[in-house]
């Protein structure tokens, strides 16, 4: 399943991506899609098959599953 994670700071995104890459998960950092948020921060896009709650950590703002252009909330720490 495809996910997009948003963060409170750019560095949180960098650390998150580093963690996932350490687990062998390919992650792409990019600007947050406008359709997801009015924030102009950094998001992480990745595919993940496990329980998304395992991805919750300090600095994570929001995690959504993407499905046919829709965003399905998985974690919301705002």
């Amino acid at each position: 399943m495809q996910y997009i994670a948003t963060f409170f700071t750019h560095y949180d995104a960098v650390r998150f991506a580093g963690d996932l890459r350490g687990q062998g998960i390919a992650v792409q950092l990019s600007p947050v899609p406008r359709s997801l948020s009015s924030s102009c921060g950094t998001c992480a896009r990745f595919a993940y098959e496990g329980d998304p709650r395992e991805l919750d950590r300090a600095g994570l703002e929001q995690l959504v599953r993407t499905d046919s252009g829709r965003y399905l909330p998985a974690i919301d720490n705002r």
Partner: protein
Amino acid sequence: MKEKRKIILAGVVIGVIAAALVWFGNPKNMGFCIACFIRDTAGAVGMHQAAVVQYIRPEIIGLVLGALIVSAVKKEFLPRGGSSPMTRFVLGAFVMITALVFLGCPLRMVLRIAGGDLNAIVGLVGFAIGILCGVQFLKRGYSLKRTYTLPAVDGVWLSVVQVALFGLLCAAPAFILFSEKGPGSMHAPIWISLIAGLVVGALAQRIRLCMVGGIRDVLLFQDWTLLSGFVAILVAALAGNLVLNAVFGGYFSLGFMGQPVAHIDGVWNFLSMAAVGLGSVMLGGCPLRQLILAGEGNSDSAVTVAGYFVGAAFAHNFGLASAATAVAEDGAITGGPTAAGKLFTVIALIVLFVVAFLNTKATAAAGVKEPQRA
């Protein structure tokens, strides 16, 4: 692709509005200038006594309220704050003062280029270098820490102040100062300026327009989406200026000399905009973006705007702002950056690098110690 098309279209509208505002009476190459307009408003309420730059600019009021209205309608009004507010206040003041050494914010820099002002291209190079430096800190962990959700009242204060300022502009009591000559005396009719501000504020909120964010995204992600908006503004304002120039004359002049509200000192155009670029990356957005975020309820951005106001007052009270280059009757060239302005620009660059370094070091250290939630 759809997002980029929207951004380009909005950029075209903003560029045309900027050119039109000059035709309606704003100073040349100054359809919009967040730095100049905040400086004018600060002067109007007596924060500084530079008699030629005092006027409550409705464009600023419209930008904030336009963002507030559209974010409320779209359910994106989100009161939040608590991300190093005092650091943001100081950075805001530094960005404003160095913008006034250049004589314009990043948006006006683009509009100056659209008017043929080649000095602004020197500024653009400095601006990009400043952003590049900021991006290096971002990559290494620079952060002013996270924001937190706040009560709604905390997110509307800057908008409330804008409504009060509009009341003062319309009522024009004796204690509000209005320039009788100079750039402050040149303005489009109030309602046209206000509507222009509202439209641009709403558009900027929808497309997240940010000159700093545009260049930052190119450097960080090779993503040109945001920057395409400013390219569209440049092209549309250039086309608007060329049309106005063909019909009325005086709206486009290619070169370094004789540019409206600009100086020709390349070194200080470069360095001051480098400071604006670096400071704006550290703040997370250009002055226009800070106004829009403040309208959306971000009190950190509202604090940054407060820093802009104080910086604008300091810039004129302490002789830090530059004067436009002019040629006297005897041929002598006057104007340009002041000695105090040059000294301040150097100090600003040093302080910005130190603040960036300290907040990078602090974040990296915290990252090692911070326990993970899951």
